[in-house]
């Protein structure tokens, strides 16, 4: 199979290019791991969004709501299980985090089901209304979060087992970031396997290319779409939970804030492409961390610059999806 490796090469190129600028190898390793962790968390949140766009031409501007809900639900569960969270046993810690993450995914997924039904379905095919209504959904959801959890931010602290860093000589790697990288890679592998090795994945890939023809072959694409939407929402919830634990605070605005990064990532990757989303997320995460170290004042501007450069190179994003 012929593959387009060029975008993928950007990641090592960026890493190597940053090394001389940063100077100290120890800082470079720390920043690189931080960038990968951030990138993979964003990837988790963005993957569902890019797939629903590819599949049904629906872009949910309210995607951030699922991220925020995930963060809040996970925070609530972890606060309820506080004794386990603070216990000095990694197993008890994980016994608190596991259910918290699961609850975040379930609640976000269920919310996604409702959101698809009430907000998205009535405006299929009408882009302008879609943007407006899903933005409206985000506004309402953000307010409801404040109704339920109160307007103030919730402070979380990571359990002992996930605090601190692994030390290799003078290189420090934060434990939580390693976990984030592992979870992110697992999600990516699961998605890649599903898309490439299963019939369901074939259907999704075919649907992204030409949904109408998939229907003409006798498949009910709307169900497929609802399924992808729900899974995407659940993943956003997972990402939100991880992000909240990473920042150690949760606010209702978290959704809208992270959603901006998510949008940048899926634009860079090429709307509809999961592989592009992966590469884009890593690029964004790495750039943000490198620039954050080199020139902290322009850190977020760096993402825009990255986006502009990539769009100048490939106007449809790194991996444009073949369309109709």
């Amino acid at each position, binding site marked *: *199979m*012929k593959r387009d490796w060029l975008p993928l090469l950007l990641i090592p190129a960026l890493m190597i290019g940053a090394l001389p600028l940063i100077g100290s190898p120890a800082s470079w390793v720390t920043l690189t791991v931080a960038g990968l962790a951030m990138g993979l968390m964003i990837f988790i949140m963005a993957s569902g969004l890019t797939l629903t766009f590819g599949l049904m031409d629906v872009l949910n501007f309210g995607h951030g709501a699922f991220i925020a809900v995930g963060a809040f639900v996970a925070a609530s569960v972890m606060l309820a299980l506080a004794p386990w969270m603070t216990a000095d046993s990694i197993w008890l810690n994980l016994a608190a985090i596991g259910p918290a993450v699961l609850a975040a995914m379930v609640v976000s997924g269920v919310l996604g089901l409702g959101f698809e039904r009430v907000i998205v379905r009535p405006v299929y095919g009408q882009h302008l209304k879609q943007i407006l209504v899903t933005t409206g959904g985000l506004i309402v959801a953000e307010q409801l979060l404040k109704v339920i959890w109160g307007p103030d931010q919730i402070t979380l602290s990571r359990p002992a087992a996930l605090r601190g860093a692994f030390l290799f000589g003078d290189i420090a790697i934060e434990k939580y970031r390693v976990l984030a990288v592992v979870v992110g890679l697992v999600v990516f592998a699961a998605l890649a396997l599903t898309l490439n090795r299963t*019939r369901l994945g*074939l*259907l999704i*890939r*075919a649907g*992204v*290319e*030409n949904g*109408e*023809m*998939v*229907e*003409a*072959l*006798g*498949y*009910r*694409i709307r169900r497929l779409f609802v399924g992808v939407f729900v899974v995407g929402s659940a993943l956003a919830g997972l990402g939100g939970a991880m992000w909240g634990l990473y920042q150690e605070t949760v606010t209702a605005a978290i959704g809208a804030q992270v959603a901006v990064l998510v949008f940048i990532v899926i634009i860079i990757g090429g709307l509809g492409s999961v592989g592009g989303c992966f590469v884009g997320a890593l690029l964004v995460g790495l750039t943000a961390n490198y620039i954050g170290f080199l020139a902290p004042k322009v850190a977020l501007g760096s993402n825009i610059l990255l986006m502009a450069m990539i769009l100048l190179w490939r106007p449809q994003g790194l991996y444009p*999806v*073949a369309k*109709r």
Partner: protein
Amino acid sequence: MTALLSLRGVQTNIGRYHILHGVEFDVAEGGLTMLLGRNGAGKTTTLRTIMGMWRAAAGEIRFDGRDITHLATPDIARLGIAYVPESMAIFADLTVQENLILAARSGPPDAKRLDWIFSRFEALKRFWTLPAGFLSGGQKQMLAVARAIIEPRRLLLIDEPTKGLAPAIIANMIDAFRELKDGQSTLLVVEQNFAFARQLGDAVAVMDDGKVAHQGGMAAFAADSGLQQHLLGLGMDTHQ
């Protein structure tokens, strides 16, 4: 022979444009009906309306005695109707194999049937694991047809199968369609190439300006050059 498919007074609008104004014709079971007509007469729209990809604003479409006018596209397909659009609409990101796996809805493709398809469209075997986007135009057309016939279907709707094909491949296509017909499939084929249509068709329906202007046997139509001239205009034979 009874009609497997029948259209009565079918009207279709695309946006503000009225494309079909009362299409009526029958497709006999087990036969090959050619749907002919000038460019813009409404042939493609008719096929898409049968598939439910455009909605009929009025009229009735019956398949095997059942009203399918308001069914959704996947449900229409599940009754045993396959569609090959003019654009071919193959999935370029998927390999040839994956395209066919997807088209075989009820399970892995049947080995014997696959062999038969390979015997007619040899290129598909050769490029089995290549993403379909890399196929040539003619090979894409073969894949599109193969996708429709990978499992037995009762009715095949095929839009311009010979468009852009080399004569040798057209000959294979003719053989394939004949064998399908023998295998109890019914075909409705839109065609511009009258030589091809005349060789293969049992019956003919000719569209003009969103209506069926003539329906009858292919033999009689092929013999009546005046009628051909009137309905299809000049240059039908020279088209491709």
